[in-house]
């Protein structure tokens, strides 16, 4: 069984394909804080510099596209590590510098708690001493 931390809906995958046609290869960085925080930001690869403070959660396989990396800051991941994320897309006037905003849509994260098998796989089951 293959476990993932991040998945993507068909609608979001379609939007990624469309945006790749405009901007070339893409990546995600999950934001936090104000206004459009808690939203995934989608950038052309190379626009946003990933640093030592970031964690690669997942390399997404989207049909027809090069692998798409999904990052988050390590400090934020501490609070997010028990949740599974699904990238969706909704109507709306997004902000930040994310590439899809001009299309009148916004990538959005839907979350669920990791199940027991996933917690075990990711080494998140509390150890009893």
């Amino acid at each position, binding site marked *: 069984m293959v476990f993932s931390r991040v998945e993507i809906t068909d609608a979001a995958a379609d939007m990624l394909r469309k945006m790749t046609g405009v901007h070339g290869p893409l990546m995600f960085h999950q*934001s936090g804080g104000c206004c459009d*925080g808690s939203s995934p930001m989608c950038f052309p690869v190379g626009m946003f510099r990933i640093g030592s403070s970031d964690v690669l959660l997942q390399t997404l396989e989207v049909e027809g596209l090069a692998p798409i990396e999904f990052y988050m800051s390590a400090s934020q991941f501490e609070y997010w590590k028990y949740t599974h994320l699904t990238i969706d897309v909704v109507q709306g006037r997004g902000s930040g*510098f994310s590439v899809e905003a001009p299309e009148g849509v*916004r990538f959005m994260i839907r979350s669920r708690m990791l199940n027991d098998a996933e917690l075990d796989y990711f080494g998140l089951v509390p150890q009893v001493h």
Partner: protein
Amino acid sequence: MTVYANPGTPGSVVTYKSRYDNYIGGKYVAPNSGQYFENITPVTGQVFCEVARGNSKDIDAAVEAGWKAFASWGKTSVTERAIILNKIADRMEENLELLSVAETWDNGKPVRETMAADIPLAIDHFRYFAGAIRAQEGSLGELNEDTVAYHFHEPLGVVGQIIPWNFPILMAVWKLAPALAAGNCIVLKPAEQTPASIHVLLGLIEDLLPAGVLNIVNGFGIEAGAPLASHNNIRKIAFTGETTTGRLIMQYASENLIPVTLELGGKSPNIFFEDVAAQKDSYYEKAQEGFAFFALNQGEVCTCPSRALIQASIYEGFLADGIERVKKIVQGNPLDTNTMIGAQASNDQLEKILSYIDIGKAEGAKLLIGGERADLGGELSGGYYVQPTIFEGKNSMRIFQEEIFGPVLSVTSFKDYDEAIDIANDTLYGLGAGVWSRSGSTMYRAGRAIQAGRVWTNTYHQYPAHAAFGGYKQSGIGRENHKMMLDHYQQTKNLLVSYAEGPMGFF
């Protein structure tokens, strides 16, 4: 009670134009792309105007216009600039109702807030910086009998400002007033969710500012915001928004070696110590109001007190009273002066808030009130309304850690002072906090111990000019709302002067 007519309908105090171009060099010019985007009012979800879809070419033109204007604007006397800022304030004050209704229509917030807070605070902000710049002095240091160091404040030049959508006019003014006071020229990019109300303000004050001093380029972040933030001919960039874009803006700034100021939000704790409930008096009522303040501006405030920490000994009673108060919050047409909570600013914001309500339920938090989208009927059915929502849970939950930017409160209890401070500081952010106590000692110690830039003490959500506002930790860099912001829009010129009549003796 008054219900203002929808802008553009008979009897309305304000009418938006059907289309807004970019404002560059003192006149409206069509965007380079020739394209416009539709602007929606969150009150009804309907389109009410079109706005220029600016791109890097428009930004280039705006920066150039700014430098052209700077040649003379940068040399104006502080008296001249202060007079202009005061005139802007007067003009706004004469048009308080018009600006307030315009802001409500673009953003969705209740008109009683725009009338009593957003626009009056913006007016006062101009007056504050008019006064601050008049009173500002350089310094001189007498190094020895013959040598003097003079320090002058000089403007930076052309600066970039990227404005958020939660207080479109007020947040713009927080950045405009100190920048103009200090003698800079500006390229401002409004948020694409709320791109229009700033043009109503501009229409009122356009004649007061020389051409090119203030340039406004609308558009999307990727197309207009990024070219502004990365422009190699701006001298400073100011941004209010979220952490990823904040980092990106610092990355750009590092490439151009320019300063940045950032305001990046938070997850503010609001702490109620047990002595709050010692009497059921007017102070208790005030604290209860403080509890309900998470709903101000639909929770779309960087400092939303979205974590209520209540001491265990008073927990049940205080929370029950708080829920009763929240039940009395009137949700309705934002243009009705009785309405206390209006519409979220955009559909994606609405969707995100609802997804967080789902996360809260999935994490096992207990829903105490609200938790649904609100359908207000009639034309408001298309608007973006959320019921004020309260969850009870633990601080490790995501709804306690992430800024939802909606009317969603997460409540937990603490047993003593130390635990209160531990929970308060267990967050990545540090913008705002609230402390409620009748004890001077408790409130002072707690206020100093909380890692946040603004600790409201026995109050909340006041934003007067002359009280510094800015973040600790991941909440940003810089302090707005105070004369110290002038430093972020100025550079220091030191003249080191020798009055000695002979050589130094080295050569």
